[in-house]
């Protein structure tokens, strides 16, 4: 009897929860259910509602609908809008999906309003934020956003001669005698390394130099050893490093050990690895106007300029920050969401932890570039 009552109660509770969840879904559930970003579709009778609807359409990649909601459609085509959001050339944006968005009213009058739209894009290398400030205008009883279009420059068809070096490698074959030579792996050296303690755990920072005359594919692995000599944890630098190093090039690296306390660590075993890979010295990317903005909102920003003739689809900027004694105090990185076109500056901005930003005396940036067909 008691069991039957329990079953009936559980059944009723389930039905009630299903009804509540359907009528008033939490935003995360709505997003999973494909109901659009962090918010459901709203009426365009308010500026926030209009921007919300626009973002919803974007999250569904319903570009036609998104375009139709705009009030400044005469200024650009639907294709321009799509290119603005997904990139004219293959880039991180091309492979990104709108994960979430936030609508924040800034100012409103009877006929015009300013609304900030923060688009959180999700990619395989993490998320990036695209913040736009939209003017929203009243049109009768409805509001329509004015999209601040960003038109990516188009490069005209042309031939750009480049004469940079390229390294190709022929390895020993399976038929060779065991005593036969193989190509030597590049010689790399850690030129700086030290651990610091952060809230998330222990972080091992440093720099790695390719001291050879050939390109190297590099990685760094660190093992924390406890007071009894036993390994506490082992991690590698993953993407907090520039994996391809040309001769005499230096990359920073950062290895994170979550939930480990530095007081438990007695020593650290570093294991840098390198292998010889085919590579090209092109493209050269200049980093212009580098600037470290102090706290609050400390950041390292600048512009990337592709000085080669090849379009760089994905650029990864790694910033190394040094204190007055020249020791590395932090390593931060950012993937640039737009493709680098020849001689066209693209901005980057890397957040820097505020407590560390105060210690920074100098900084250095390097760029790792990726294009279809492998490492560049």
């Amino acid at each position: 009897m008691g069991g039957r009552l329990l079953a009936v109660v559980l059944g009723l509770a389930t039905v009630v929860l299903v009804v509540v969840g359907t009528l008033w879904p939490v935003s995360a559930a709505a997003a999973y259910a494909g109901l659009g970003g962090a918010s459901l579709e709203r009426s365009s009778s308010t500026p926030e509602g209009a921007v919300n609807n626009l973002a919803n359409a974007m999250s569904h990649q319903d570009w036609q609908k998104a375009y139709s909601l705009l009030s400044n459609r005469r200024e650009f085509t639907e294709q321009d809008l799509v290119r603005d959001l997904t990139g004219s050339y293959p880039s991180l944006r091309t492979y990104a999906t709108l994960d979430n968005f936030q609508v924040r009213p800034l100012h409103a009058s009877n006929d015009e309003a300013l609304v900030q739209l923060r688009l959180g894009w999700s990619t395989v290398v993490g998320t990036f934020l695209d913040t736009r400030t939209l003017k929203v205008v009243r049109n009768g009883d409805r509001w329509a956003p004015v999209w601040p279009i960003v038109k990516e420059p188009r490069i005209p068809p042309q031939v750009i001669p480049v004469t940079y070096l390229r390294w190709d490698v022929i390895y020993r074959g399976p038929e060779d005698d065991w005593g036969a030579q193989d190509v030597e792996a590049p010689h790399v050296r850690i030129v700086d390394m030290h651990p610091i303690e952060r809230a998330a755990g222990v972080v091992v920072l440093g720099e790695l130099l390719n001291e050879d005359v050939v390109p190297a594919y590099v990685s760094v692995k660190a093992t924390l050893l406890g007071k009894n000599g036993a390994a506490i944890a082992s991690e590698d630098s993953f993407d907090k490093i520039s994996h391809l190093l040309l001769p005499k090039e230096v990359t920073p690296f950062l290895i994170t050990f979550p939930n480990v306390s530095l007081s438990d660590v007695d020593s650290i075993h570093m294991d840098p690895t390198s292998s010889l890979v085919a590579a090209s010295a092109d493209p050269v990317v200049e980093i212009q106007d580098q600037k470290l903005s102090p706290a609050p909102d400390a950041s390292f920003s600048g512009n990337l300029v592709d000085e080669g003739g090849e379009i760089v689809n994905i650029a990864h900027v790694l910033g190394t920050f040094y204190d007055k004694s020249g020791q590395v105090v932090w390593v931060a990185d950012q993937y640039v969401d737009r493709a680098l076109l020849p001689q066209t500056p693209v901005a980057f901005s890397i957040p820097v932890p505020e407590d560390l930003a105060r210690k920074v005396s100098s900084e250095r940036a390097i760029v790792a570039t990726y294009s279809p067909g492998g490492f560049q």
Partner: protein
Amino acid sequence: MSPGRTFLLASAMCAVGFPAAGQSGQLDLPKNVLVGQAFSIPNAGNGQGVLYIVGPSEALRIDVQPGQAIVIPAGDLDNAGHFVAVLSSGSSTETGEFDILPASQPEAVSFLAKPSRLPVDLQSGITGAVYVFDASQNLITAPTPVSFQLSVPSEAVQTRTVVTKQGAAWTEMNSATKEGNAKFVAQAGDVSATRVIEQVPGDPCALKMNAKKVGEQIELETDPLRDCNGNAVTDGTIVTFTESWNGGQTTVDVPLKHGIAEAQVPAINGARISVATGVVMGNEIRWSNR
């Protein structure tokens, strides 16, 4: 002979009674035999029998006629090592042991030369190790002189002679002061093996850049980069130009091309421009637009 067949033969030996329950004796065998050489085993028995010879990766089965010496033809036993012979004839079994020794004349060398690429002017930077083998690929364990020669065009040949210990000899050599491919030869008897060691320039010895204004830009160019032995630094080496001014910085990493690195940075009055490659710093220029 395959290991499987060796196993079958060994099993067969056990099957014929090794050690046999009947009469047993000692075979009259030579103590040592050179690999590949023919030899004979006296046979005073008066019945038909079978001789088994088992050694490293090798086994033989020979039918024996009464009263005839048993001849092991040249080339039948190729592997050096310790062998066991068992002659089974009727109810009697005779056994013996002997060693097949490797030939003293080297016919092949395995030459390990490390590294295949290294900077110039490095003391004891090159290592060569040689294993000496006879015609049947047996390691020659008897002391054998091995000559190592490292030669580079325009420099004296480095030569070392090392006597093998237990079949191996090794040496260390210095890399030359001039870049280029070195020929590293190891010779034992009449056989030799050659490896090529690539000797590459070292770190730049002096890094100096010059600057001139071109329009709104400063054109930076290094002097041809050379290491401390005068070798041109390899093209493709990354050179970093850094321009710093009050509150800003521009950096550009460029590869050397024809021994020179070039870059353009904005012409900013009062900017400090520095150059570096790897851990080597170059000169610094303070730019003035006047």
